[in-house]
């Protein structure tokens, strides 16, 4: 049977797409698209971005941060680049699926397409090497490499997606008016994840300089295209960059961190194991070859970027190690191609495609046994948070006792109210001392370091108070981002408008403690249970500041 070469390329790409999507999200999502609550969310950042996108979809425009995430201040500019929020809201509106599903699905698709874009980048060099590069990309779903999807590094994924697209556009500057493509991708990158703009710009500067040096002349036509692209990118991203410089650039500045900052989510060279040797061998082949393709320089450069931790880029560089299997796939393809050529002098495109398909199946087979799960959130806590969102007055403050699902503060943003989460260590201390207290340490669920707002239509200022003092509307007048914390770390639970309890926990002692506190509160005349499901109980305090524990005491010793 003669295989048609035209169907081999789509066959490899569709197989890659299907396997990757299945392993990344299909099994993780219980093979459903629509869920009753955020499904497969593994860390705080995921809830953070989901809650922001949710708010923006409800507002109809992507501009301001949800007030309950910035101390209850209205009209605070969202410091994060807006691209992912726009795209996930659009998909949600158009398809009818919830934002918490659309944002994770979209991130997964951008992740997969980043690999396919690398394929296209390599394909210009050699179609067969491109096909042979595809199978190794599936290893992105192993170990810590898959973290960006489940931990919510979605803005970064979007950044890498447009970064590779920008690299492709730069590699095709020979096309008529192709600066438009480069400008659009760089502009999109500017509103997706800003560090990647710097990395692409750095590559372009180095590549252009070396090119001019080797040709011994300043290439004015190429320079003109780069300049036009930069102007277009600037026009697209100017507003967002302005916000960035008034927020993150002010609060973070240069990262100045020399470690990965990713803790147990870090990736090191040893983590790519034997495949790393294949990459190294492919690199040597590349360096030996007379014709050195753009895809190889791209791979080397991005590997170099992932080690900019050495000069203080911290996680802005280290996160790129999660994409090593994409970036370095070219070297695997190159090595595999050279080996095949050694065995078969007249290797055919169809033959290479079949090898690629076989490798893809072999590499992905063990990944089917990887575990999956619904993530941090569960249906009952989600119902509890949704009840608060829909039924509690806007300025009410809710205190949260221990919950397995809500330890990550960003999950509390889904209550759409100011949320104070009981500090775990303080709780453990109280349990050890067998005491119920009026005062515990609570942390305000907030994630933003600067509350940027409009003082006038042409002038930014900041809100100072965090959170806004109850009943007092603060003017947007502060000249710098420094905040005043208006609530103590130690808070009296008798001052809470609402108190949230989980009745079960992975460690029974934590649930028992919750139940005892809840029981004591319900014994007085000031509090009442206003919501309950199988897991959650929400208590309303009708008389703030009263002796909610009873017995005129601030500590009750348990027997």
């Amino acid at each position, binding site marked *: 049977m003669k295989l048609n070469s035209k169907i081999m390329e789509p066959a490899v790409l569709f197989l890659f797409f299907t396997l990757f999507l*299945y392993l990344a999200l299909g099994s993780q999502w219980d093979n459903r698209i*629509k869920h009753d609550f955020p499904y497969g969310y593994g860390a705080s950042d995921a809830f953070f971005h989901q809650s922001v996108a949710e708010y923006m979809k409800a507002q*109809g*425009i*992507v501009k301001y941060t949800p007030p309950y995430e910035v101390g209850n201040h209205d009209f605070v500019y969202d410091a994060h680049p807006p691209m992912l929020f726009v*795209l996930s809201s659009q998909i949600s509106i158009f398809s009818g699926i919830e934002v918490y599903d659309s944002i994770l699905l979209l991130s997964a698709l951008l992740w997969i*397409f980043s690999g396919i874009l690398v394929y296209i980048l390599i394909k210009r060099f050699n179609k067969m090497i491109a096909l042979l590069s595809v199978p190794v990309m599936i290893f992105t779903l192993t170990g810590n490499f898959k973290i960006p999807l489940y931990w919510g590094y979605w803005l970064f994924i979007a950044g890498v997606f447009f970064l590779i697209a920008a690299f492709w556009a730069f590699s095709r500057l020979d096309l008529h*008016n192709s600066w438009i493509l480069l400008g659009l991708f760089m502009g*999109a990158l500017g509103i997706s994840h800003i560090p990647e703009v710097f990395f692409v710009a750095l590559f372009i500067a180095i590549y252009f300089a070396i090119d001019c040096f080797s040709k011994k002349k300043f290439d004015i036509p190429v320079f003109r295209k780069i300049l036009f692209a930069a102007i277009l990118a600037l026009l697209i991203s100017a507003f967002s960059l302005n916000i960035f410089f008034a927020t993150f650039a002010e609060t973070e500045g240069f990262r100045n961190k020399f470690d990965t900052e990713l803790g147990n989510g870090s990736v090191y060279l040893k983590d790519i194991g034997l495949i790393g040797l294949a990459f190294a061998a492919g690199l040597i082949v590349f360096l030996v070859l007379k014709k050195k393709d753009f895809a190889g320089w791209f791979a080397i450069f991005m590997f170099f970027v992932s080690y900019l931790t050495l000069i203080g880029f911290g996680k802005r560089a280290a996160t790129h190690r999660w994409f090593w299997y994409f970036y370095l796939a070219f070297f695997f393809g190159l090595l595999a191609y050279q080996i095949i050529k050694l065995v078969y002098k007249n290797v055919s495109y169809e033959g290479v495609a079949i090898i690629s398909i076989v490798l893809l199946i072999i590499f992905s087979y063990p990944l089917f046994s990887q575990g999956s799960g619904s993530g941090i959130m569960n249906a009952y806590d989600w119902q509890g948070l949704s009840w608060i969102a829909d039924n509690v007055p806007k300025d009410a403050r809710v205190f949260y006792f221990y919950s397995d699902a809500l330890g990550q503060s960003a999950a509390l943003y889904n209550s759409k109210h100011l949320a104070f989460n009981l500090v775990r260590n303080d709780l453990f201390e109280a349990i050890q001392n067998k005491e119920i207290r009026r005062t515990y340490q609570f942390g305000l669920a907030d994630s933003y370091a600067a509350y940027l707002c409009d003082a006038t239509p042409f002038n930014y200022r900041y809100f100072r108070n965090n959170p806004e003092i109850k009943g007092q509307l603060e003017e947007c007048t502060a000249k710098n981002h420094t905040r005043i914390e208006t609530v103590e770390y130690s808070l009296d639970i008798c001052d809470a408008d609402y108190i949230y309890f989980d009745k079960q926990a992975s460690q029974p002692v934590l649930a028992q403690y919750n139940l005892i506190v809840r029981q004591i509160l319900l014994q007085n005349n000031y509090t009442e249970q206003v919501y309950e499901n199988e897991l959650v109980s929400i208590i309303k305090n009708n008389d703030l500041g009263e002796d909610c524990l009873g017995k005129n005491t601030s500590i009750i010793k348990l027997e």
Partner: protein
Amino acid sequence: MVKTQVSSSSNEELDIEVSKDNEEIIIKSGSFVDEKKVDINKELVYLALIFVASILVFKIVFYKESIMVVSQLAFSFFFLYILPGFSIMYYWKSRLEFVERFIIGFPLGAAITGSFGFLLGLFGIKLIFQVWLIPIVCFILGWWFVTKTRNL
């Protein structure tokens, strides 16, 4: 080396150098154009096939979901990002083959719909209108590139 200038089919000028033994041609600037003939009808069939294949892939991956939800989702991605980007890529129809235009069409569509969606939002145009406005403008531009422009 013999220096010369020739014209490519896109009327770009190529500066080339030919070695004395005529074995090597070095392109100093510009590029040879491998002009591709585009059969729109055939490409529409390809697009339809990819759309059906996408539904199939989504149905395999999310097999517990109804075909209606899966189709709606595939249509959303096509309408919002893939087709707008692919339409704009017709500007380079003679230089890029279908697969490359299709794949780059996705980031391009996302870049256009996302960036201009954000910017339109700043002028008060809500998301609900953007999801129709931006793709339709891209389709019109794409149609114009297909029918009116010369090969670029």
